[in-house]
């Protein structure tokens, strides 16, 4: 319940945050909303020696149109993603998925950037942004770079971000009226998904992201290929686990996870078709 002691510094800008994290080195961590990090610290599963609080970095909370993309500031809260009229119009799948993160109290504080950077494969938004073909903008000592969601996730809680880099923006292509579906399957509403499927479909083109089916969020490319090749939803869904490598846990065996991925993918494809 009581975290181990640490030092705390607050950054006023992204540049300052990167400078601070650079000073403190490996044992330092960024703190955004804190809704992934603080619980781990309370159980002493995480014991950073320094927290660099980026929660007050100016101007990183926004959702705006930018050509054929929507740009979302990394510190935008889940609640604001969920209720954004811009996203409702252009990327309704993401808004909807954000409404399934945690519970209302968590959504009031947790941020999209924090959730993505935490790189938890059981979280809803990594797989959703992956399905949507999003790009993440990271800022480091040497400036900014763009990382495709498909290249971002390296394993459990590890990503392409360097220790002194922070996410500043998420760029999501407009869905252009594509059909979509978000299938989150869990035992309690507040929990992480046992398996989740985020899918969009426009004609024979589709994107399917899987939650909690490997050590990273999974882009189900084989499903997309099957759909492109004219397969029915049921047939395409049979390929749902082709890119997955699920683990067993208290809620699901491996074979059940694979089965669920297929069922939920079929349902998502059916729901997002036409």
């Amino acid at each position, binding site marked *: 319940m009581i975290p181990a002691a640490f030092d705390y510094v607050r950054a006023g800008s992204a540049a300052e945050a990167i400078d601070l994290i650079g000073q403190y080195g490996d044992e330092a961590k960024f703190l955004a909303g804190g809704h992934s990090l603080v619980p781990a610290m309370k159980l002493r599963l995480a014991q950073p020696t320094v927290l660099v609080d980026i929660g007050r970095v100016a101007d990183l909370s926004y959702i705006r149109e930018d050509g054929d993309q929507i740009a979302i500031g990394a510190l935008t809260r889940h609640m604001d993603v969920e209720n954004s009229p811009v996203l409702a119009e252009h990327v309704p799948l993401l808004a909807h998925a954000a409404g399934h993160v945690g519970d209302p109290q968590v959504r009031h504080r947790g941020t999209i950037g924090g959730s993505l950077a935490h790189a938890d494969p059981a979280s809803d938004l990594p797989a959703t942004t992956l399905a949507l073909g999003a790009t993440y903008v990271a800022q480091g000592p040497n400036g900014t770079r763009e990382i495709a969601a498909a290249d971002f996730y390296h394993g459990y809680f590890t990503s392409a971000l360097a220790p002194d880099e922070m996410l500043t923006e998420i760029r999501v292509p407009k869905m252009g009226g594509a059909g979509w579906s978000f299938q989150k*399957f869990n*035992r309690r*509403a507040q*929990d992480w998904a046992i398996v989740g499927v985020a899918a969009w479909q426009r004609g024979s083109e589709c994107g399917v992201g899987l939650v909690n089916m490997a050590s990273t969020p999974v882009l189900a490319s084989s499903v997309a290929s099957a759909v492109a090749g004219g397969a029915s939803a049921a047939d395409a869904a049979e390929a749902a686990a082709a890119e997955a490598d699920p683990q067993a846990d*208290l*809620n699901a*065996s491996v074979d059940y996870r694979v*089965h669920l991925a297929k*069922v939920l993918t079929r349902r998502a494809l059916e729901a997002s078709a036409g």
Partner: protein
Amino acid sequence: MTMTDDTTGVLGQRMLRREDPALLTGEAKYTADLPIPGALHLAVLRSPYARARIVSVDTSAAASMPGVTAVFSGADLAEAWAGPMPCAWPVTDDMKSPTHYPLAVGQANYVGDGVACVLATSASAARDALDAIDVEYEPLEAVIDLEDALSDRVVIHDEIGTNRSYTWDLKIEESEGDVDRAFADAAYSVKERYIQQRLIPAAMEPRAVAAIPQPFGGDMTLYSSTQVPHILKVMTALTLGIPEHQLRVVAPAVGGGFGSKLNVYAEELLCAALAQRTGSPVRWAETRSEGNQATIHGRGQIQDIELAADADGRLTAVRVRLIGDMGAYLQLVTPGVPLLGAFLYAGVYELPKTYDFSCTSVFTNMTPTDAYRGAGRPEATYAIERAMDSLAAEVGVDPLELRRRNFIPTASYPYEAMTGLVYDSGDHDKAATLAAEMIDYAGVRARQETQNVPGATKRLGIGVSTYFEMCGLAPSRVLASLNYGAGGWEAATVRVLPTNKIQVVTGTAPHGQGHETAWSMIVAEKMGVSPDDVDVLHSDTAIAPLGLDTYGSRSLSVGGVAIAMACDKVVDKAKQIAAHQLEANPDDLEFSGGEFRVAGSPDRAMPLAAVAFEAFTAHNLPDGLEPNLEAHTTYDPPNFSWPFGTHMCLVEVDTETGEVEVLRYVAVDDCGNQVNPLIVDGQVHGGVIQGLAQALYEEAVYDADGNLQTSTLAEYLVPAASDVPSIETGHTITPSPTNQLGVKGIGEAGTIASTPAVINAIVDALSGLGVRDVPMPASPNTVWRAINEAQGGQQ
């Protein structure tokens, strides 16, 4: 209702609770809320191994940390205890119980077993110091599986030489061999094995303790989040060697218990012992992840049940074999839990004297088990109600019809059961009929015909559970026959103050049940005053010195009845004073509406208020009568009380995912006369969801090495509002003839009835696919697997 005529109509009203304003505004103080200047904070280092020899404990680094006052290993404190941790229920004369101290000495026996502790000036300093204690362990093989434990392949506790704590039998036959003959002659029989998974009670308030010594005065006050302040006082005095009269135990606001706070815990004894040793107040607040390991668990049984029936499906014999999981040690009433169910394996059904029950309980390297809401009775009810569904399938009749054929007939009440216990009153058919109407049982069966067709992915199921609850613990002589270490009485004092306000002192210890409201209603009814004029004092042994506390749905049917009886004594005394004042014969006085009247002379009257003042001034009392209006009663109930009812659950099972959706839940409960129906319904709602949570969500999961996998509320799935259905309640009212209020208990009924209703519904939905049973909790994965296995692995 066996009330006298002088009712004011308070009983039976849906009166709002007087407890609520303080709880709703944050004004109520739980133990951790108490301001205690100068208190030292206790933190406990717990074994990370399920079984390990403690080779050495080096406390020196921890002791030198800032804010740390002292650090103790189990060995350091071994001399502090006058006796080991208490078990009050040695169920057999040869029961084996390993020595158990608040901190382990020599060997730790479950993950969470305390091995050392820290006192520090802040909670964070105490917590930090735990990480600096260096314990060298020699890990030993742990025993997790109950049948493995039974085999004694690995013996956990060398000192007792076996993992078997006891075997307790209850065999009832007219002549030897009757049970075997009944099974040999049976037209139908079923044999089933059910697993009662371990559960974590998870009261929302974690435990908390504070001990405040008076080093010079000699007294000690122990605050604890407990259901049993009186029992805790006796046991703490015995274990620490503190004179009982110098120990005061207070249970402030208590945030739920469900049996988990019906105990005497290591941390209570540690706080008291270390407060005594240091002369400083010592406090401790449990964290949730600590509590999941260190607060008792519930259930944990393997049940083998066999039913024999005649050609009509009427029961002719029941045989039960249990293995009970005691966990690593015996806590306060651990060994007695299976016995509380032993009398209920025939449910609400007629059974000849052909009953054979045997329970063997074993030690394992897991958290000790103990009473959890229902304690033994949910397990028994689950087994018989699940097995009745199996029997119905065997006989080929509807499960509800099979139950009706077996119900104890209403006309035979009071009914002497084959166990010798007398069931006070019941009308099972009435409750079942009402439940069936509410849920449209016949309509559901018709819908199933059209919905549950081959290939259907959403299958409808309805589950029935008819139950008895044996509660109102308990007649002291019956407890004696079960070797229980205390009586089952309850105490009450009713005191009319000079201004006609009434104080009630009760030995019950509420922690959410609303006793202050309910007890004031009883007094209001009996004394003709407003409930607002009644104050209820409880849960502080300095104010309420006598009592046996709150558990086992006993508070109303024992404690509430004691209050009513004390009221009668006060009225009797007041009548003598009034008669004296009115110059009448006491036998000619009537008491109603708070006023004494001379029969036939309505103008000769005296209100209770005037009598109370006369009793106080004592200026003109009858010769020989003591001043003041006060009476005390200690009531030992002549019988248990036997609430009953029928619950029905309607589910839809998604055969693709195994997900179960509870569409409707109907609970018809009969707890006799209701003091406050608002509270009765609340008890039913909470109980039903707790039982449903066992059926669908909850399990304390251990890995093969004895590590608890569900150590936080993120893994241990207490359901939220989003995960459970609304509940439709109905009631029949069959008063108990054994007490003057006609009441029975209601605290555990929902938990007892709901678990089998939910599982019966799931199995009913899937029976067309060949599924005969689904283990608990019926998670989607588990249900999916059951379907797969029934379908020969094809899905």
